[in-house]
């Protein structure tokens, strides 16, 4: 498959050259493929955000390189092009909304791109519609729930029509309902709009909806593969400080009780199917 993002020996230091220098990324080799939904997990401080910030040139590699559709983020002239390709949504919606009206906020990105007025209006309408936010278009953000605010932040990025949207723990501040809605939006954008999604998260319930996952530890990629494949390696998962998805925990427990449950169950839906077959 076609590579959208590719890193090569990517290394990054915070406060380089000072006494409290931190090596946040340690020769990372990874790729994001066009059209996939990729999740990146790992404990606090494992370097997820630092890696993600390289994807749209918010940070420049200390050593090694990163290419976005062949463009290097180290090249100043490519940065505006790279930011058109890769959109980014952050953890706290309050700190990324610019305007006091939803539709104006969504227009902010397209306005920055210098698009003609008619095109901006079309894109704002499209983004509002795609994320089911039409009813909120004239609302001020402080009247919205945290989940709705995060949807607005996603719409603001979507209106720039990026090929890839990177979400850095977009559900960390949300209640279960907001979390589910944001997750549904991400999945829909991936399946229906063909947008590549990179999801940084601590929730295994979100990871299992992705095609592929990366596990980071100490600034390096420790594991890589489909959720089924990764969660098979129980010892490594534990040493990376991660949980197992609820479905695989339950499946494991049932297996220990002597039930015949097929291996590699990570999604709740699969577990339900399996249990139904068991019954009949």
């Amino acid at each position, binding site marked *: 498959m076609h590579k959208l993002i590719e890193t090569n020996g990517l290394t990054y230091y915070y406060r380089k050259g000072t006494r409290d220098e931190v090596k946040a990324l340690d020769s990372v080799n990874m790729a994001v493929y066009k059209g996939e939904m990729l999740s990146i997990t790992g404990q606090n401080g494992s370097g997820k955000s630092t890696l993600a910030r390289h994807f749209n040139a918010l940070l420049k590699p200390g050593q090694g390189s990163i290419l976005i559709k062949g463009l290097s983020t180290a090249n100043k002239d490519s940065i505006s092009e790279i930011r058109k390709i890769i959109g980014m949504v952050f953890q706290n919606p*309050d700190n990324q909304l610019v305007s*006091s009206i939803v539709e104006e906020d969504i227009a902010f990105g397209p306005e920055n791109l*210098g698009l003609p007025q008619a095109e901006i209006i079309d894109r704002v309408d499209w983004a509002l519609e795609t994320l089911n936010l039409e009813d909120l278009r004239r609302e001020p953000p402080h009247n919205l729930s945290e989940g709705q605010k995060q949807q607005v932040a996603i719409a603001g990025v979507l209106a720039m029509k990026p090929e890839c949207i990177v979400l850095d723990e977009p559900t960390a501040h949300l209640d279960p309902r907001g979390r589910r809605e944001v997750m549904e939006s991400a999945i829909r954008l991936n399946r229906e709009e063909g947008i590549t999604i990179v999801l940084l998260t601590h929730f295994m319930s979100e990871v299992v909806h992705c095609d592929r996952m990366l596990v980071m530890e100490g600034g390096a990629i420790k594991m890589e593969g489909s959720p089924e494949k990764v969660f098979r390696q129980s010892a490594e998962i534990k040493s990376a400080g991660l949980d197992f998805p609820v479905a695989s925990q339950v499946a494991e427990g049932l297996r220990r009780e002597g039930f015949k449950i097929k291996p590699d169950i990570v999604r709740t839906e699969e577990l339900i199917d399996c249990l139904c077959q068991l019954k009949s």
Partner: protein
Amino acid sequence: MELTKNITLGVYLPGKSSIHNLDPRTKIITATIMIVLLLISRSYAAFALSALFVGFLITLSGVPAGYAMRGLKPMLPVLAIMWVFQLFLFKAPDTTIYFHWWIFEATAAGLHMGNLIILRVLFLFTVTTFLTLTTSVVSLTDGLESLLKPLRAIGIPSQELVMTLVIALRFVLILAEELEKIIKAQMARGVAFDRGNFIQKTRKIFPVFLPLFIGAFKRAEELIVAMDARSYTGGKGRTKMKTLHMGRVDLEAAAAMIVYGGLLIYIIIFTEPMI
């Protein structure tokens, strides 16, 4: 402690009145002219006329008058102190002395000076609050941006300044909410903000502002990154989703403004100033 309830400056009450429908540029220019006229008004008659005009505008807009004035409440003690200060400390030769005690004299000149200052503050506050109550922040800043655009020619980054204002206005409410949260957290730990004398109260409020400032800086940093990620590189090369249009209401407003302004200037010139 409901801090957000009393903030009316920067709050917008949506509506469909002709005041709401004015082009923001018309409103900004009119409000500016009104403020200048109020600053040169020195007679009770002039303020009476302005009160009539402002009352007319508020009625036309359908904004509840009580709401427009609510933001004044926290300012009242300060206004009262200012008034007392003027009453006793403003000195003028040959003026009536109402009251004399030790080195303090309440004079007619002081009374009028106190009144003048209070009237000016009241009107300035009402006019600016009225402007923000009937104009969304977004159209306000669109209007400002359009009016200030010519300043680019002399090297003033007007678009960036307006963007700063847009963000500051968005963050006022967030910070007020945050302040409330911090105060509640402190109260939960047993700090009684409503007890003690003035100095004790002030000392209790102080530790509240430190986390607020730290929080505000962190927010600002995150916002900068988010704006960067959305390709913001300053005003250059930016286009706008909305463009502004002047219409019939704007002409009517200009006419009303000319009548009021003319009358007021006449009064300012030909009536006795209060001081």
